[in-house]
């Protein structure tokens, strides 16, 4: 056990230490990347699921498989406000007119999540049964919605003041939805992490906007 052996051991310990530190750092980064990617995937799935639902519902606004039941489709929107809308629709294609309402609740309803901005998006379906009775179902869409904003335009493209006093004046709509993850990674909800040009944090926020949505049935006949 000469001095060269001791030097070998010291050198190998140092190199091992470096390797270990690198490995730990790599592990951290891999973890972070994995969490970011998973969060992103969850956000994307939530967003595509939510937008598919919204598109499904809004495309059928004013539709009834028995057209005689909805003689004036321009009256299909019953209430229209900044963050809520109620309209007539034949959701189950049973020739009876149903009603559908979307609205968002307050942030306090989602106090169990770390995110202080997320809300519940409600979807209330009132199905008219064959015997004339109405079955009401209210779904809580807890998908990290932080913004659900409706904007309404008149026939000349002018913005209508919300709540819209005469919903039959609505010609087109704009729907904006923003969702965020329920919890941040490494406490990155602060404004410093937000892209100043887009206002969106790519890792934890996702934005969808349908501009000038014109439900086809509104202007039938």
């Amino acid at each position: 056990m000469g001095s060269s052996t001791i030097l070998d051991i010291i050198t190998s310990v140092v190199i091992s230490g470096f390797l270990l530190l690198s490995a730990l750092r790599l592990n951290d980064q891999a973890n972070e990347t994995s969490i970011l990617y998973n969060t992103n995937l969850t956000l994307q799935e939530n967003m595509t699921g939510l937008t598919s639902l919204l598109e499904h519902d809004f495309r059928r606004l004013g539709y009834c498989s028995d057209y005689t039941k909805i003689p004036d489709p321009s009256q299909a929107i019953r209430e229209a406000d900044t963050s809520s809308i109620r309209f007539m629709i034949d959701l189950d294609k049973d020739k009876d007119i149903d009603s559908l309402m979307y609205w968002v609740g307050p942030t306090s309803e989602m106090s169990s999540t770390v995110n202080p901005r997320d809300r519940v998006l409600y979807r209330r379906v009132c199905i008219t049964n064959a015997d004339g009775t109405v079955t009401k179902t209210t779904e809580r869409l807890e998908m990290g919605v932080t913004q659900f904003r409706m904007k309404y335009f008149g026939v000349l493209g002018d913005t209508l003041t919300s709540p819209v006093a005469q919903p039959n004046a609505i010609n087109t709509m704009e729907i904006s939805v923003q969702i965020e993850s329920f919890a941040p990674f490494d406490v990155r909800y602060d404004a410093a992490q937000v892209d100043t040009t887009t206002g969106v944090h790519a890792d934890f926020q996702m934005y969808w906007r349908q501009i000038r949505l014109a439900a086809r049935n509104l202007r039938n006949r």
Partner: protein
Amino acid sequence: MGRASMIMVMSYSTVLMMMGYNISKVSTQAYENYIGYYDRTNAHNIVASAANMAAYQLYDSAQWRAGFTDKPIFGGTATATITQQLNADSTLKLHIVASYKTYTDTVIVILRPSSFSKFSYYSNIEGNIWWTTGDTVWGPIHTQDYLGVANSPVFMGKATAKLGLEKYNKSATPQFLGGPFEGGVDIALPSNLNQLTAAAAAGGRFINRTDSAEVRITFNGDSAVVRYGPNPPDTTVYLPTWAPNGAIVVRGGNLRVKGNVNQSLTLGAIRAPGQNEWNNTGKVRFDDNFTYTVDPVLYPDSNTTTIVGVVAQDSLVITDNSANDPDIKIHAALFSLEKGLGAEHYNNNNERGKIELLGGITQNKRAAVGTFSGGSITSGYSKRYRYDERLRSIKPPFFPSTGSYEVLSWYER
């Protein structure tokens, strides 16, 4: 030492490769999720575009039934089929299926021949008429002329005009609450009433008068008393067998009607070949109230589908008689091909109350029903016209068609 290091490095590399694989897999899933949404949206855009193209073809040519198969659009394909549906409205079903990569989407559009009966007000010639504050029109309105507006009239239904909107002055602010006002919309009156006449001859009741005489029909629910000429005999008929398809046309004379009806009918009067307006034929005269047996406004729960049309090649006339003084009620979609709805002797200084119309009016030109001074009626009738909302979805049998199709429902999957 060397072997242990190798094992350690290889193990570590394996762990890192697995982590990398998982990260890559998640990343790919996110990407695929986005691509899937993009492809679905594309498939939907293709089917919506194809549906618009097919609807336009039908609008352009009402006889178009060919459809198209695997038409390439935006990198996908679309197939459109058109089927005639066997129902009272003679609706067409436009079925469009589009494919984009592995995704398919569907749009189903139901269309029907557009009828003049849907209008609450239609005119070919408006003349010097201005819709102004206090005028509220319910239901669709169209004119082949300018739609003249002063101050702030309200149009609750769709408003269209061939020649556009004419404002009395710059301060005119018409309210279009049934959708955007559309100018340049051409919905011309038909050149004749052959379709109704043919239907009356085929499965209804066609009364051919060679003597220019009048035919008087007094309706009473599902039956009627018919008098050919001014004098008896009278014949009582059961409407479902006398005019099974609901079309009743008098040619070469005038038709005089009154009473109440519980059968869907279209009554018509046309001139015989060779006759012109100087022959004084092709008119329908209202000798008394002409109403539904069950008033759909007073009894909305009855859900009555009885709907009546009254069609005249010449004019629609409210007879000057004691039965129509004061007031007359008319429940029908009215149509005058060459003239309009007027009152006989409207300016004889005799005030006769009001015309209570439940239905709609389609006329070549507005005709006079009374005279006014300072906002008060001085002779003839004042007007109480109410749109029958049922005319949006049902129409009297064989009522004149606009010659094009209209969309009844548009279903997107």
